[in-house]
């Protein structure tokens, strides 16, 4: 074995420090504290109660179910909306312009989630840009309620996560040989057949990795559901936030944090199995 020199250690130590101090230790600490439970006498004991309360109290698992269903739907929606865009940018438009368009797509990420959310508030409010415009045109007389509804929450979540679907799908489509599409079309395949038999299967690893990213981003998001979501948009992360900040019950919050991690990982694992994808291929 080759003897490792100083440079090797110089580079490996920051990586290890980063991993241990910022990722491993806090997780271990939270994991341990998630088993601490304060019983009625005010004594802290080791127990599974923090985890059990998730299943015992319907408000918790119902909220999780709702959050998960919304996250899955929005992920599917993100695919439907962005796939044509990704296809257009890689296969139709010339390379010179496509990088410019990708740059445009990046802009919402640069300004940050909170700013884009406030932007949507200005657009969707009762007397906001869209309603005022429609009233001015005489199409409607009373404003359509859009802000603080599920509609505005979905738009907000979709908007901030779309990019994470587009980029992996584009890179997957990039490797698709154009001649395959031409050959299929020469042999008389319809556009729909080409899309479902050639383009989508080829892009599948990209779609899957984009899907994982979008799903994880949405299920773990706090800001968009909280600000755009309106009065019934209790998101699972908000419950975790409440444990940490309102009732100051960190153990319970930690337990729910790990439940979120485990359950969302399980959902991803399940979907990958169902669609026959391999994580190794998706990751590449």
């Amino acid at each position: 074995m080759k003897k490792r020199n100083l440079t090797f250690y110089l580079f490996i130590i920051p990586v290890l420090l980063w991993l241990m101090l910022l990722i491993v230790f806090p997780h271990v600490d939270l994991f341990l504290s998630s088993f601490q439970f304060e019983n009625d006498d005010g004594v802290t004991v080791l127990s599974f109660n923090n985890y059990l309360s998730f299943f015992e109290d319907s408000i918790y698992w119902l909220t999780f179910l709702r959050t998960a269903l919304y996250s899955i739907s929005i992920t599917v929606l993100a695919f439907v909306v962005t796939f044509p865009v990704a296809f257009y940018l890689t296969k139709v438009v010339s390379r010179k312009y496509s990088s410019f368009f990708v740059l445009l797509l990046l802009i919402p990420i640069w300004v940050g989630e909170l700013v884009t959310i406030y932007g949507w508030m200005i657009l969707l409010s009762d007397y906001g840009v869209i309603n005022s415009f429609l009233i001015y045109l005489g199409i409607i007389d009373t404003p359509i309620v859009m802000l603080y509804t599920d509609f505005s929450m979905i738009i907000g979540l979709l908007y901030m996560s779309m990019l994470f679907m587009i980029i992996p799908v584009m890179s997957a489509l990039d490797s698709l040989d154009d001649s395959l599409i031409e050959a299929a079309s020469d042999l008389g395949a319809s556009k729909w057949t080409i899309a479902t038999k050639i383009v989508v299967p080829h892009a599948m690893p990209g779609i899957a990795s984009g899907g994982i990213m979008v799903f994880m981003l949405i299920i773990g998001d706090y800001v968009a559901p909280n600000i755009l979501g309106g009065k019934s948009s209790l998101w699972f992360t908000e419950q975790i936030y409440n444990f940490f900040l309102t009732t100051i019950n960190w153990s319970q919050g930690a337990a729910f944090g790990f439940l979120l991690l485990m359950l969302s990982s399980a959902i991803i694992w399940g979907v990958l199995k169902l669609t026959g994808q391999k994580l190794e291929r998706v990751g590449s």
Partner: protein
Amino acid sequence: MKKILLVGASALLLTAGTLMAQETLRVLTWKGYAPASLVKAFEAKTGIKVKLTYSNNEEMVAKLIATRGGGFDVAQPSQDRITFVQMKNKIYQPIDYSKVNEGQLVTSMLDSVKKNTKVGNDSFGVPHVYGTTGMIVNKKLAPGANDWSDLWNPKYEGKISYRLKRPILIATALGMGEDPFSLYSDKAAYTKLMKRVEKKLIDSKHLVKNYWTSGDTQVNIIKSGDANVISGWDGKGWTLHETNPDIDFIAPKSGALGWIDTFAIPAKSKNVEGAYKWINFMLEAKNAAVFTNQEGYGTASKDAIKYFDEKIKRNFSRSFSKADIDNIKWYPALPAGFDKIESKILERIKAAK
């Protein structure tokens, strides 16, 4: 390679050294509580560099618990949020009132804060800012709204908003003709009352436009016309009144909720002397008036009223009659365990259809 490391290490030490050289004061406070002009004046007077971190009651406590009372030299929790945390987590240190210039404070407020922040023989707070939670109403679009019960009045359907936190539970109980604070000694009765409050707020949820979540969203939702009858803080209502005379703060008939924000010193404060200097400086009549003239909230500084702008005095007399003032319900210290009852109820309301 070794040389580079050496240079790097010494550079690190050097910057650490210069940071230590200047005395600093790390203040954990609310937005607006430390106006830039006062911070500058304080730095010029004492040579202490002030570092501000903005927060709210919940985050303040969470931050201090996470650091076990370290990381900050002064904090500004509300008076009712000190004892139940202190009993369990010991994140503050007792106030040495001999170091506080008590003469410049409103005596009744100082006594009340001392009483409400007492754990054992020590008290943990010095009053700084007070204000009330009441209603902010667009009087042109929602004439007649003047009580907490209007937050579930079908007349204002779709134009109602409030913050789904503790104060709305208390306010709803008041609007229903109950006195929640008198039940603070009786957990079972309080839980029962809160059940009724929960039902009331869930039943009337369809009337609500949205729950506002911060000072900014509070102002935004009524300014934009999305809501006309909201719960809100007096200072915010009065600032809104300046830009739109139709909007104003109203003291609800069943009683506005009075809060007092304090100065408290975290257990591991590294600059206790500086902290007392800051407290005394901020409560000097002239400085306290600078704050009130800018933010609209009341101050615990006794003689600050001499330096108030005319409009501040007008605000107060416009929103509060003599009877309204006598009817202000001041928050008593929150008993331990009550936050759990309330938090569950708030979540159920938020999750309800």
